[in-house]
């Protein structure tokens, strides 16, 4: 008899300890909301900031602790997989989120009164009063919590919920830029509409897979691949639609359209968070779905992802060349990088091969994450009257006005281009190497050709910064706040250190990937 009561036949068990990093982040987010409700306005920021940072640092410590304990199993009734990759991704996301929050903490990035019509008297008043939405902190925490849950979820429902928990705050955060409000709102709307569209696809895919397997548990779907017959239509349609949803989230072509708009319109610190954290989380989820649930179907989806990878790389690299806005360019570059990462996703094989691919992806994500956060941090510092100086022409001659800043930005660009002795090189290597080992040489060749194309637009920016004359009314370089300076320094240091001595992180990624995903 199917009754509601029968569903909960026994009291479930939840491993609070293993989930503690996530719980801490979510808990802090809730406390943050409470602070919003109860604390007087002038105190809010000074309460929110420590809560946010400390909780994330705490979560990071807990993650490390879990890692040293060697936890590797599915917690919470098999709903959340706390395994090597999860822990690694958590750590990476938390670190990057901490860095991003330092950036977010910077004043005057966010709107004073989101509900006020841009340019209205209301807005002026809110600005004059020094109003600020301290809600961004809890929102960021929710988003980060979602990012942590997304790649760790071991069934599709949790994954869907996590996807939304991650995305919804980001939709809102996108629309909160202080300057260029219209642009920002538009970005938020586009992100929202397309994001919701894609999650509907994800959900429909989930439904079809549920129809196929009778369960949304990844392991159960995996098992059903061998036991269930005669439902191929459901299976393939399900895989296709779920794939669309996931590919959208990582911004792979042909589902990349949102990325440039959103990256450009969002407040830059949020862009940094998205470009690093969301990408990591989405890749974790993509891997989990395709490797764990659909691992035995790889002959079917590999060719498709092959095509997607190639298309993504080409679209990212080619369209980036035509961009004139720095944030859009970085967005397209992010698309190209997504393509490179996809190369490793299809490079499956035996267990050792999978582990190598996985560790490559993990390492790449970390290196890319740091470089990208750093790059966007630099972007926040180049200002002109109407906000950040987005247009590339405004960057001309920056190397002469501020050699250090331009030098650091050039470093990040070189890392994106994958020049040796920057982190990006080893990232690329870590991804290409397993791909070659698994026989995807053609894909790798496309990869290197497009990286050469990608290098062109990175180099173009360097050319602009260093080799052209600064215009007289060039943008001002904002004196970095402590936070921004710290972010830039940290990211640059990470880029260099990982470029010269990547071994520790590689080891970590390797040991995280060794056990692969729990099933």
């Amino acid at each position: 008899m199917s009754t509601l009561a029968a569903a909960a036949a026994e009291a479930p068990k939840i491993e609070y300890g293993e989930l503690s990093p996530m719980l801490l982040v979510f808990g802090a987010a809730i406390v943050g909301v409470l602070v919003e409700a109860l604390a007087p306005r002038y105190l809010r920021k000074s309460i929110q900031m420590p809560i946010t940072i400390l909780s994330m640092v705490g979560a990071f410590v807990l993650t490390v602790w879990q890692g040293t304990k060697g936890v590797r199993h599915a917690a919470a009734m098999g709903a959340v997989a706390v395994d090597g990759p999860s822990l690694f991704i958590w750590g990476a996301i938390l670190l990057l989120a901490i860095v991003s929050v330092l950036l977010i903490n910077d004043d005057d990035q966010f709107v004073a009164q989101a509900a006020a019509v841009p340019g209205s008297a209301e807005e002026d008043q809110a600005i004059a009063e020094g109003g600020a939405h301290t809600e961004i902190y809890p929102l960021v925490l929710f988003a980060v919590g979602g990012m942590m849950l997304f790649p760790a979820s071991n069934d599709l429902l949790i994954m869907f919920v996590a996807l939304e928990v991650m995305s919804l705050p980001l939709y809102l955060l996108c629309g909160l830029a202080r300057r260029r409000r219209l642009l920002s709102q538009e970005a938020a709307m586009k992100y929202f509409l397309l994001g919701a569209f894609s999650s509907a696809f994800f959900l429909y895919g989930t439904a079809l897979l549920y129809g196929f397997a009778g369960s949304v548990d990844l392991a159960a779907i995996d098992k059903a691949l061998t036991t269930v017959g005669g439902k191929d239509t459901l299976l393939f349609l399900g895989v296709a639609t779920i794939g669309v949803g996931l590919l959208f989230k990582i911004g792979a072509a042909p589902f990349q359209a949102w990325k440039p708009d959103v990256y450009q319109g969002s407040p830059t610190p949020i862009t940094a968070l998205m470009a690093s954290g969301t990408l990591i989380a989405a890749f974790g989820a993509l891997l989990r779905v395709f490797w764990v649930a659909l691992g035995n179907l790889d002959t079917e989806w590999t060719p498709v992802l092959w095509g997607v990878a190639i298309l993504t790389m080409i679209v990212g690299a080619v369209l980036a060349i035509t961009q004139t806005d720095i944030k859009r360019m970085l967005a397209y570059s992010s698309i190209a990088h997504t393509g490179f990462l996809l190369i490793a996703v299809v490079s499956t094989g035996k267990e050792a091969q999978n582990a190598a691919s996985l560790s490559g992806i993990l390492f790449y994500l970390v290196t890319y994450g740091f470089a990208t956060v750093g790059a966007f941090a630099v972007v926040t510092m180049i200002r002109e009257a109407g906000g950040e100086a987005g247009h590339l022409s405004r960057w001309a001659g920056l190397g002469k006005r501020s050699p250090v800043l331009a030098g650091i930005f050039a470093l990040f660009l070189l890392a994106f281009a994958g020049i040796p002795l920057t982190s990006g090189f080893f990232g690329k290597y870590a991804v290409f190497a397993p791909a070659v080992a698994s026989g995807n040489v053609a894909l790798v060749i496309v990869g290197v050709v497009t990286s050469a194309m990608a290098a062109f637009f990175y180099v173009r920016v360097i050319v602009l910064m260093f080799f052209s004359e600064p215009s007289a009314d060039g943008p001002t370089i904002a004196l970095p706040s402590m936070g921004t300076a710290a972010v830039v320094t940290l990211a640059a240091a990470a880029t260099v250190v990982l470029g010269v001595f990547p071994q520790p992180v590689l080891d970590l990624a390797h040991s995280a990937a060794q056990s692969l995903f729990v099933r």
Partner: protein
Amino acid sequence: MRALLADPAGPTLADFGKDPLWISIIKAVFIFVFLMLGVLFGVWTERKLISRMQHRYGPNRAGKFGLLQSVADGLKMGLKEDILPRTVDKVVYILAPVIIAVPAFLSYSIIPFGPVVSMFGHRTPLQLTDLPVAVLVVLAMASIGVYGIVLAGWGSRSPYAVLGGLRSTAQVISYEIAMGLSFVAVFLFAGTLSTSEIVAKQASGATWHLGSLDIPLPSWYAILLIPSFLIYVITMLGETNRVPFDLPEGEGELVGGFHTEYSSSLKFAMFMLAEYVNIFTVSGLCITLFLGGWRAPWPISLWDGANAGWWPMLWFFLKLVLVFGFFVWVRASLPRIRYDQLMAFGWKILIPLNLGWILVVATVRATQIEGANKTLVMVIAALVVVGCLAIYFRFDTVAQRRREARAAEAEAEFERLRDEPTAGGFPVPALDLPHYHGVNGRKEVPSGTN
């Protein structure tokens, strides 16, 4: 199943879904007729009762005691010209009354009228159907009914109707939350959402083992869970837009509310019908969930045959009449409250109260569970209480401060603007102007003199 029949606790979920189609039809028709007649005589009862309370006669022309007054009204409406205002959105306008009426009837399908009886040789429960989620059906139907209200207001394309519709919607959904929450405690005790099983659970009171004491608990949830019951009763009034919560059609401010444009004909009758059917529905639900359902109340229940056969329908009907009487009583006694008070009452008092009460009930239940970690439960309870109190006091002080500040501000504003017609103040001559009451300032002048 045979064993269940012998059980005086009445039918369970397993007894449903076995009826042949014709029995279902009979039941459905019965419910329909019951409700239609109920509405007709309900209206009459209400008018009669109120007039009695107000020392009037009430309807007394049509039929004996005016019994046929409602019938006459209904017929009149059916015969009146159906007016379709020019500006309305026709589809919506016509659809709205249907949408509002149908769900009202549907809810009744899960109200149990009595135990298993023999109907033309078939053994069948006196209830159209039952579901594991029966109570949810009622809530769902209520929600669909809301669409009717919104669409009626919207389709009319008239400001009063729109505002009335919106207000009514806001009110209904607000009170629906409190209503839904008030059920939770019942389900905690009953362990089911099935109406027939909830009735069965109220057959006999449980005992509460507190230490060595065995405290017998009352069997009716209305007594056992008084707060839930009270909240339900309040929301019941709000949910059906009855006095004192009949803001949506508040004649004083909104003409007829959402059905302003439905000036005549059976469409208007549909709204009336739906309102009364809804009253019966919530009353029936009230009886089922809190007042022991069709079971006979205490003195009658001493008679063994009271809860068997067709008798329980009588008890149910009596209870229904009483609850309906309560509606009328309230209508006759209470004034209509202000809209912001209404919303504040629903959101700021009923809901938190309800949530707190649910936690209390849950904690108590948890202590009763075998093998439960009592200390943990107590610690949680203590934490919850402390937390609630802390938040309450914080809120209270803040609210107090804000109230005072607002009062002071208003006072200051008033002081400032009192005498300035230009600033929007009313041009009132100073009360101590000499020409008023003589030169010596204010002096009380007895009326009738001068």
